[in-house]
């Protein structure tokens, strides 16, 4: 099996090299066309700080913490092109091959982690999957997409409000990975109908999706203890049991959205959907069947989200403003006295408390000339302010993450906010892209990611530094000893 995996990867690499960066395309004229494209990518990340706090295993500065090899091959086939009278049929297939090498040839500490937990680590360190597979049908105002796919709603980047439809894979790279690379496609049926102009609203569109819950739900994989991107925590003292959602209709992911353009400027959308939380909720269970009679149960809970988004262009400022608001109904929270009463001497099984949470974002996108540093391309700036507010806040509410060194749970404030800023431009005919991304928590933590990407067609190289500074018990600061530098090489065809 291992040989087969390496064979597939080498085969893909050779294919990429032989295709010399060119997509493979066959045109059938009016009957459509077929294209094959893909990428082969390898990424190595080295930790730039020494391990601190509850991070396990200890890894010295300069050691490898990631060696991710990824290959995707994609086939797009348009069977018939849409015209005023003809429908369009097309399908898309994407295969993904992933292999994380740090557990096999990385630092000894990670090889030991694998040996201690081979089944779990081996399960997520490699993957050969039919990653996306969907068929599209378009006819007039109707659009249907059925199959394994991603769907993203809303206006936000980096943090998700209305964009929680697909689960995220946090087992490799975690917050240091691009959001889209972490999305896990799920099987769903999705449809749209364009009503056209109704009253003051143009392009009024109703959209819906359904990911059946009774056919096996895909959930966000949980980064196990000892993996490089797991949250720092003391070693578990009781058995940890992960429970995936039951196969029931009630556990479906499903939603509707209506959107349109008002006054030829304001893009407005209203949405409601049900999804499954990416972070499982923890309770301490009293169970006589386990040694010690105590276990930690992690369950993936469903949550209903209602929200709206809007963007508009303001001509005087040459700026696009974006905003989004989402109301999370009965979102699971963590109150140690309720989730884990055993910790307080009350030996009963805990429960999952829930409360409504309001989250919103206000942001803007602006392109501007700064000819002192770039005469040919504009500087792109994307700014966002995020906030969350727990309506029925309980003073005992905590984050299920332990503070070093005594292990008490970190505080969950009633109102929390963060700022994000991404700035980039391009040089050398679009082949050189420097970028700086910042995430700032006013409670005292900053994540900063300067990066530079250069393409020598068909190769693309990227160097990025992931720096974190501030308190180790504040949002992004929790990972402050995970600072790393990453180098990535990609071959595209």
């Amino acid at each position, binding site marked *: 099996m291992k040989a087969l995996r390496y064979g597939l990867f080498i085969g893909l690499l050779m294919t990429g090299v032989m295709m010399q*960066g060119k*997509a493979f*395309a066959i045109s059938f*004229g*009016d009957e459509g066309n077929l294209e094959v*494209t*893909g*990428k082969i990518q390898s990424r190595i990340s080295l930790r730039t700080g020494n391990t601190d706090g509850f991070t396990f295993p200890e890894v010295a500065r300069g050691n490898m913490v990631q060696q991710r090899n990824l290959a995707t091959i*994609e086939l*797009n086939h348009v069977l018939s092109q849409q*015209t*005023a*009278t*003809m429908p369009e049929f097309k399908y898309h297939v994407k295969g993904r091959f992933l292999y994380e090498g740090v557990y096999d040839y990385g630092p000894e500490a990670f090889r030991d982690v694998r040996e201690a937990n081979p089944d779990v680590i081996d399960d997520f360190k490699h993957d050969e999957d039919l990653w996306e597979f969907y068929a*599209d049908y*378009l006819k*007039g*105002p109707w*659009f249907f*997409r059925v199959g394994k796919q*991603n*769907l*993203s709603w809303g*206006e936000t*980047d980096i943090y998700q409000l209305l964009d929680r439809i697909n689960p995220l894979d946090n087992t490799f790279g975690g917050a240091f990975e691009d*959001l*889209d690379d972490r*999305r896990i496609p799920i099987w769903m049926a999705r449809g*749209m109908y*364009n009503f*056209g*102009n109704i009253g003051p609203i*143009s*392009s009024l*569109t109703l*959209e819906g999706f359904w990911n059946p819950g009774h056919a096996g739900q895909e959930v966000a994989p949980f980064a196990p203890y000892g993996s490089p991107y797991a949250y720092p925590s003391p070693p578990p003292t009781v058995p940890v049991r992960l429970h995936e959602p039951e196969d029931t209709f009630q556990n479906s992911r499903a939603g509707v959205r209506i*959107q349109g*353009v008002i006054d*030829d400027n304001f893009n407005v959308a209203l949405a409601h959907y049900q999804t499954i939380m990416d972070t499982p909720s923890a309770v301490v269970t009293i169970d006589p069947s386990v040694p010690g009679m105590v276990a930690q149960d992690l369950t993936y809970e469903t949550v209903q989200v209602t929200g709206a988004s809007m*963007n*508009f*262009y303001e*001509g005087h400022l*040459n*700026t*696009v403003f*974006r905003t989004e608001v989402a109301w999370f109904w009965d979102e699971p929270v963590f109150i140690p006295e309720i989730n884990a009463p055993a910790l307080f001497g009350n030996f009963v099984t805990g429960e999952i408390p829930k409360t409504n949470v309001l989250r919103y974002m206000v942001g803007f*996108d*602006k*392109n501007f*000339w700064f000819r002192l540093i770039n*005469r*040919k*391309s504009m500087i792109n700036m994307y700014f966002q302010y995020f906030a969350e507010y727990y309506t029925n806040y309980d003073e005992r509410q905590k984050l299920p993450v332990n503070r070093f060194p005594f292990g008490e749970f970190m505080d969950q404030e009633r109102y929390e906010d963060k700022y994000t800023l991404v700035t980039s431009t391009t040089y050398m*005919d*679009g*082949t050189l892209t420097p970028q700086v991304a910042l995430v700032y928590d006013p409670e005292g933590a900053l994540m900063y990611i300067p990066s530079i990407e250069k*393409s020598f*067609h068909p190769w693309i190289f990227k160097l990025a530094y992931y720096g974190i500074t501030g308190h180790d018990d504040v949002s992004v600061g929790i990972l402050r000893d995970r600072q790393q530098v990453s180098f990535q090489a990609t071959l*595209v065809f």
Partner: protein
Amino acid sequence: MKKHRRSIMVLAIVMVLCLATGGMAAKEQYVDKGNWETIKDLVPDVVLNWVKTGDMVVRYSTLDFDAGKVVPQWVLESKMENIGKYKLTENKTIVDAATGKPPKFIKGIPFPNVKMSDPDGAEKVIWNGLYMRNANGSLHNELEVKFFGRKTGYERSIWCDWFSKPFEGYEPARSEPNPNNFESANQILIKSPYDMAGTAMMTWRYRTDKENMLYGYVPAIRRVRRLTPSGRSDALFGSDYAQDDGGYVSYDGAVNYFNWKIIGEGDVLGGFISAKPTLVIQNKAGHWDFNFKNDGPIQWSFEKKREKNSGAPWFVDSAVWAKRPVWIVEGIPKDVYYNYGRQIFYIDKENYLCYWKVIDDRTGKHWKTLWTYWAMGQDADKTVSWNAMLITTILDERMQHATAQDGNKNYRCGVNLNSNQFSLAGFTALCK
């Protein structure tokens, strides 16, 4: 006597043949650094310098057709019907001359009789050029965007699909519902290379002086996103092009964003893919495909297929250059942040297609030059005509780097595109 007559006849035939072949010989010639004076005053000064230095070899020819008449039928009709029918407002939008109100539909080009003395003459020339793309109907082109360097030669390509749907100018669009008051809507979708594939952009142009509406789709965020229309002079996909460099008149922005002036008229050499009309064939779906089989292969300089008569890598050696009457129009952006300074356009007086655009930077120094090789399409019966902006090249003189949009793989006019494709929902469906 009979013998004498025969001799005279033979002599006459020989003379006619000599004249005929002499005429053919005179019809086409290569102009290079050895005989550059031949085209002095027929190309912009910067272009003449290319010829003098050997960068450009001009295949100077005449056309076997009247380029002013090989245009869509409704353009020809509008040249008669639209005389004096429309005028411009103070804000340079088009209104009905009689009522002062926006017209419901404009057929062909709005201002067929531009006069140099007309204070709005330059704006009218630009409007006509903008309407020429509309008049060529809905387009679906497969574009290869080629990148070139002086030292590197051909560097790489980006492959795109281009869709454009007019709601004006194109006679069959008259009956099309237009509740959003669009002038046109267009989409560009990048198909390759993989790191850019899926990136898409949609523009709604309004019939009023309203800002264009721009949407973008970036696969990395998997979302249709509103874009600012302020970046129209920003480098497009990192190329030497700016978004405003597009269109049949080599300008794709709003007319009232610039101060325009006709600064001259005369003859220049215009680029054509062939001296003959390119064959257009109606396919089963009723769309018109450009078929280049009679035009011969398109030969780029970088391919080095010729031992001589070849120049810098960004030229098309097989193209022909023919003398055409033009308006010389100056455009100066009103926006102080616009990346270009003065631009000079050389626009055909009869068909309003642009042959050359010379671009200065904001300090007044020459920066870029843009030129187009047109394919003038005609069906076998010579009853249906279409115009294709087949290959457009822009050269950054300072960087000695060029980008070309090459549509010769698949250029289709008069496509029966569905309006829903240009709605928000339709754009989302186009994306991954």
